[in-house]
């Protein structure tokens, strides 16, 4: 390619009635990044497009934007011949590509973002194994670039009782640290860790390859389960119990176990399900050869193999 054609979102809420897109063309240079295109448009064409960037090497998390429908950190992605560059979705816009991060910065500063020691370490350096710290070390790589938040479906529909993957990663960094002595149960519930829908959108998009779902959110939920508190504790326990006892899950039975007497409120819905043959006549039938499965589970738990 000889040139790069970029169609860029422009909007200044204090001046413009509505957003617009403007087309720019700059000469292509070898190994050009999307960030270089934005810089060239500003410096060579004299167009004052508002965009943030600091480090230029994927460490500061400032330059996030949406490029051809996919959120990226623009300092780490190669320029394409034709690009549509927009601000990250689901955030208020300050100007052009600059989003207002205030909401998430407030969430992150709302919990104790530091270790709280119960006891002073007995010696220095402390006896902490690599295995104990590897999770936390991985989470430290989060640059708070907000790409995960921009693709989160909870955020997309404007659901307020979920703090988003980035905030939970920041919490997990401390809550999963073996040196942390603080009871963070209320922080986990308050940030709505149980309201993650497990869609993996944050996993795929994370430029630091942190895997916020399996390395931060699930371990937090597992930690919360051990306290037997939070809205999903009973559900998770019932699910595991049913798998161990019957092999498979019968959703109607699981629902009854979860809700108890409150399940009666769903009676009309249950009847509709029953009429359509969506509730088995025998609730909780065991899978064939369930004894084998139970043997396996007992053996693995007893021997802790």
């Amino acid at each position, binding site marked *: 390619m000889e040139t790069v054609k970029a169609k860029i979102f422009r909007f200044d809420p204090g001046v413009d009635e509505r957003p617009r897109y403007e087309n720019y063309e700059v000469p292509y240079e070898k190994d050009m990044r999307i960030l270089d295109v934005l810089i060239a448009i500003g410096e060579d064409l004299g167009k004052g497009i508002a965009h943030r960037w600091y480090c230029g090497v994927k460490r500061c998390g400032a330059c996030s934007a949406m490029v051809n429908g996919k959120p990226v950190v623009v300092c780490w992605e190669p320029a394409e011949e034709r690009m549509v560059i927009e601000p990250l979705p689901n955030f208020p816009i300050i100007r052009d590509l600059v989003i207002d991060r205030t909401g998430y910065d407030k969430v992150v500063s709302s919990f104790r973002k530091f270790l709280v020691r119960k006891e002073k370490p007995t010696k220095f350096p402390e006896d902490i194994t690599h295995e104990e710290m590897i999770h936390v070390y991985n989470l430290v790589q989060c640059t708070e670039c907000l790409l995960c938040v921009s693709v989160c479906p909870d955020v997309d529909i404007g659901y307020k009782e979920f703090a988003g993957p980035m905030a939970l990663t920041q919490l997990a960094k401390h809550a999963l640290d073996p040196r942390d002595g603080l009871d963070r149960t209320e922080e986990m519930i308050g940030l709505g860790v149980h309201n993650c829908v497990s869609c993996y959108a944050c996993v795929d998009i994370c430029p630091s390859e942190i895997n916020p779902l399996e390395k931060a959110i699930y371990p937090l939920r597992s930690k919360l389960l051990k306290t037997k508190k939070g809205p999903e504790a009973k559900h998770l326990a019932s699910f595991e119990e049913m798998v161990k006892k019957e092999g498979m899950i019968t959703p109607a039975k699981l629902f009854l176990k979860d809700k108890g007497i409150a399940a009666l409120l769903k009676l009309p819905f249950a009847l509709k399900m029953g009429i359509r043959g969506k509730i088995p006549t025998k609730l909780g039938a065991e899978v064939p050869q369930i004894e084998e499965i139970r043997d396996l589970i007992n*053996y693995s738990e007893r021997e802790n193999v």
Partner: protein
Amino acid sequence: MSRFAYYPGCSPKSSTTESDQSMRALAKELSMELIELESVACCGSRELRISNPRLSLILNARTLALAEKDNLDILTICNTCQLNLQEDNLKLRGDNGLLKEVNEILSKNNLSYRGTVKVFHLVWVLNHYWAVEALKKKVKHSLGGLKVAPFYGCHLLRPYQVLKMDDPYHPVSLKKIFEAVGGEYVDFKASSKCCGFHVLMTNETLATRMSGIFIKEAMSQGAECMVTPCPLCHVALDAYQGEAEKEIGEKLNMPIFHLQQLIGLALGLSEKDLGLSKHFVSTKGIISRIIS
């Protein structure tokens, strides 16, 4: 004829029996032999991955070992089963130490796993094994330009590093199938988003708001019906559509098909074969249009 170890999963055996029924009918039509893995456990869904991931891995290793014993690859019709089985399969195949450890436990059942099984979702099989071109030749009732919105479901596409099936941002695998049977693919922003199923039991408000908003988006793009390759998405989109309507305060009335049902209709299978009377939202209007 292609033979598979068939793993329908929990939902098709109880809350979406029509997805299992229509899969069996379609398999017959496409000369696929399904050998059901009957004595297997749940894949772990999301719950066991949180509460006891080790148990989830052991149970999935057992499922894989049973398929290997029959020298068969596994066919799934549920996105979450696909992800869990495939993810654990990759873990076991990529870590000899772990495989040895798990095999020691499986030996209690006189089983062992060597890592030779592949796990395929129906969408993958139709796109690769059963070439879409071949599907075209079997069409008896073309969908005649019916506007069909895809709802891929998260665990068919993400995490890409594990599944590597289709581009999570611009998926096309269902497009090829819809077009092969004469449907018009309605591309809409939420087609690869989440139905909310995995919080349905703990937070119905969140799940139904999510599914309601995304169905509405498909409607705004002119979709006459939606199709999903995942029974869990079907529960959220069809069975809970009434609740979703209440949650977003709008009437939706969107027929939702399982992928195998839509293909089955085009291939001339009957309503009864495909279990279409089991849906909450009536599919009659769409069926009569296809058949006429």
